[in-house]
């Protein structure tokens, strides 16, 4: 409820709706006049002190008639909503949850129902039952069931395949209870929105019926009949239509706004705070640039990169002062766990930061050119051209409606002015370069016809279309089987040998880093904590060469290191702190088994400990030899 009040549109809609309902319910006490009191001397008066909303052609007070006329309008909407939801929700739930013949039968009935002309049938019902509006409204309610069934069914189908429904089954929860406890609550938002649509529809429908002469018997007022009357005096007094039509429009609008807000709020409660926090486009700010220059020979050089996100109107860093260099022909692994900021670093380089994140400070230099925060055409030329990107989910990265050939041809023609025919030829070359068997056949395939490994090869082929000099691979093998993973790693290594490509691999998998990378940059809680040649971190006995305790512990936690018959793996106690909760001193100190008082004094700088090695640990500071277990 308090959350609702923080949404002005939804709260206002609720207040207006409540006011309308209460005012209509209290019409006998609130209305200044009796709704039928005619005063022909005062006919068609505009709004004024005596009649706030004016009078109609018989001189009756519009405000009073609107108040009295709201009752039949709102009650008939309520009836239609009750009938539609009462039939539609159970039918949709059963069809979606049970599946099989129940689903097929329901859906066939729904298809028939959708083909029926609602207005005509309601008119037939009215003529058969001698103009009884209640029966016509029930008929209308039934006619609005089919679309609701379809929506509820597809929502229920989606929930049915959730693992927690399986878990409930395994827990011995009976099916009826699963529907009520697990499926129905998830559909609450959907059903609420549909109810508001049905209510709005029925309000408009009863207006239409009143226009045709079916509705409240004159002189009793209803919103529908008042609109019909107003339309007859449209030329003399257009105001009448504004008043009667306006109240209907206002009610429909408020219903929609209120339902949308409540739906958003229920979803927000389940998904945490994020969805209720609005993401503003970050204002462009002057980016602070650090003084130190990129070393000669680096293809990509990142200096002092700090990335922040907006949280409760505060800029919270997710990446803090990260520097790294990649030379041509070199592969650097950016290693870290979720929440370490490794993906944000990679995305900063290609200018594709997400979720309102922005570069607060630092400089990204590619081939001697400052590309920090590049936007527009210049960014597009760089992205996919000089710098290519492959994502973790190969299938999700390919447009499912587009064949592989045209998809790649599009990428080729983005970066080169070539004829369609030349582009086709280049696509086949690219597919061959990615070692796909039978490139002609693959070019004719849709993505769903490929296996995961083939899809990742296609993604590699697409990345190569712009003849890149730097390839950024975000967890390139995490979604693949081990044997396929090995093939992709071999492919990337082969490509590097042929073309001198520089590769930045973002990964949490030490095995992948060991296979693919020359150097590893280890990140923890937004900072680089260690940088070293891979051969000095992995493969050395007991990982004693890792200088930072976090790196050592992370390597040791890998079950591949556990001897046969081990009953316990070495663990890092606690959890990685969320952005905004990082300690000012060493970020790892609260979890570090070797933490000393000197670790909590102040920020720890990243310092050189040997050739090509850096560490952010006070224990390794000043020591030429890395501190480690023997």
């Amino acid at each position, binding site marked *: 409820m308090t959350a609702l009040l923080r949404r002005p549109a939804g709260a206002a809609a609720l207040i207006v709706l409540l006011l309308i309902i209460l005012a209509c319910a209290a019409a006998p006490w609130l209305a200044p006049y009796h709704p039928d009191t005619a005063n022909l001397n005062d006919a068609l008066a505009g709004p004024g002190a005596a009649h706030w909303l004016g009078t109609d052609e018989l001189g009756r007070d519009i405000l009073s008639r609107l108040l009295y006329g709201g009752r039949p309008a709102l009650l008939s909407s309520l009836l239609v909503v009750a009938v539609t939801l009462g039939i539609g929700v159970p039918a949709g739930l059963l069809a979606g949850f049970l599946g099989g013949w129940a689903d097929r039968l329901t859906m066939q009935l729904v298809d028939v129902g959708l083909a029926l002309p609602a207005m005509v049938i309601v008119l037939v019902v009215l003529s058969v039952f001698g103009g009884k509006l209640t029966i016509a409204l029930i008929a209308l309610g039934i006619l609005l069931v089919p679309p609701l069934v379809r929506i509820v069914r597809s929502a229920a189908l989606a929930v049915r395949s959730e693992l927690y429904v399986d878990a409930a089954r395994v827990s011995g929860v009976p099916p009826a209870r699963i529907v009520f406890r697990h499926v129905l609550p998830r559909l609450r938002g959907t059903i609420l929105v549909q109810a508001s649509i049905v209510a709005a529809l029925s309000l408009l429908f009863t207006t239409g019926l009143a226009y045709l002469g079916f509705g409240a018997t004159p002189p009793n007022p209803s919103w529908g009949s008042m609109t019909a009357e107003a339309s007859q005096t449209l030329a003399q007094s257009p105001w009448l239509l504004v008043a009667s039509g306006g109240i209907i429009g206002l009610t429909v609008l408020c219903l929609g706004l209120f339902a949308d807000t409540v739906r958003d709020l229920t979803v927000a409660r389940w998904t945490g705070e994020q969805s209720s926090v609005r993401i503003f486009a970050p204002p462009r700010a002057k980016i602070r640039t650090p003084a130190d220059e990129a070393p000669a020979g680096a293809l990509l050089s990142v200096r002092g990169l700090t990335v922040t996100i907006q949280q409760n109107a505060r800029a919270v860093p997710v990446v803090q002062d990260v520097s790294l260099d990649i030379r041509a022909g070199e592969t650097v692994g950016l290693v870290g766990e979720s929440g370490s900021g490794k993906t944000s670093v990679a995305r900063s380089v290609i200018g594709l930061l997400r979720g309102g994140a922005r570069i607060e400070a630092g400089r990204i230099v590619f081939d001697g050119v400052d590309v920090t925060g590049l936007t527009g055409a210049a960014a597009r030329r760089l992205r996919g051209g000089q710098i290519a990107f492959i994502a973790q989910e190969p299938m999700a990265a390919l447009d499912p409606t587009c064949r592989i050939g045209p998809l790649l041809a599009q990428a080729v023609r983005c970066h080169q002015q070539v004829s369609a025919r030349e582009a086709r030829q280049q696509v086949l070359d690219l597919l061959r370069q990615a070692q796909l068997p039978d490139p002609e056949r693959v070019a004719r395939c849709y993505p769903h016809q490929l296996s995961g490994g083939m899809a990742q090869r296609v993604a590699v082929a697409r990345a190569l279309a712009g003849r890149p000099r730097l390839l950024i691979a975000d967890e390139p093998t995490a979604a693949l089987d081990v044997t396929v993973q090995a093939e992709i790693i071999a492919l990337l290594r082969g490509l590097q040998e042929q073309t001198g490509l520089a590769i930045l691999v973002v990964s949490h998998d030490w095995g992948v880093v060991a296979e693919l990378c020359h150097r590893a940059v280890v990140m923890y809680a937004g900072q680089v904590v260690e940088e070293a040649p891979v051969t000095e971190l992995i493969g050395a006995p007991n990982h004693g060469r890792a200088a930072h305790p976090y790196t050592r512990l992370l390597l040791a936690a890998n079950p591949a290191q556990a001897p046969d018959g081990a009953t316990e793996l070495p663990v*890092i106690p606690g959890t990685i702190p969320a952005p905004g909760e990082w300690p000012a001193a060493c970020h790892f100190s609260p979890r570090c088994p070797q933490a000393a008082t000197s670790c909590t004094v102040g920020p720890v700088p990243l310092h050189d400990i040997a050739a090509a090695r850096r560490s952010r640990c006070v224990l390794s500071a000043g020591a030429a030899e890395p501190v480690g277990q023997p």
Partner: protein
Amino acid sequence: MTAPLLDVQDLTVEYRARRHRVAAVSGVSLAIAPGETLGVVGESGSGKTTLGRAILGLAPVSGGQISYDGRDITRLRGRARRSLAADIQVVFQDPYSSLNPAMTVSATLAESLRARGALPGREAARRIRDALEQVALPAAAAGRYPAAFSGGQRQRLAIARALMPGPRLVICDEAVTALDVSVQAQILNLLRDLQQRLLLCYLFIGHDLDVVRFMAHRVLVLYRGQVMEHGPASVVARRPRHPYTQALLAAAPGSGARPARPAAPADSLTDQPGCPFAARCPAVTGICRVSRPPLVSASDGGEVACHRYPELALCRRNS
């Protein structure tokens, strides 16, 4: 060996795909003794998840038999199946989809208690507190929604839910796959510790040979729904006998060895008469393509389904 708690004989699970039937699991037999962990290793499409779901009663069994504690549970439905919930529980892979986001932690945990019958509110609250403590989560977690927890914490919640009714067999379907290395180690230790304290039996399904080796006493290797080999964890994971397991081990990154990769497999799942691995096997011969190799017992424990196992074993011993 004591009588197995779970005994699966010749299990087959088939799905209809358009016209023909596709076997996701084909003739798999396994047994788990009380207090034991059996690891099941396989890549995607190997049928490892379907195997677990069939034992849980979530996948249709087309042939074979599943016995729990000496009782046939293959085709139990309705009330009889639901009463088994107190004995057989599950921890799924995805900690995000396996908890209902619209239910508080205590509601989720209380629900899985139902299998043991109705409990007074105070007793249920105590059991919920105990379960949370068992998985090292604060008691305050009970009133919150799953969205408030990280992936590792959610997996602890999923474990707490599985433990609520006091099961003897827990099926862990890729229970640590979605987690970071350091969190994975914490969860694996927790599972081992709980097994010690509560004398649990695990069917531990995974694709990572190292994780399964750490968790399991014995390991079963599946490929396209069939058992390739099974045996003691250290043998299967260190000195595999079957060419497929050898390929798996060699492909694990960081292993150093890198044999030539066979070409991508032909992606048809239609039943071929021979060994399912024949198309990719470096040691393939004529007979592999025409007849399915039977499981024969191996000298260093367990069984191997390979026509060429005797020769290959001999070669290895001599080399």
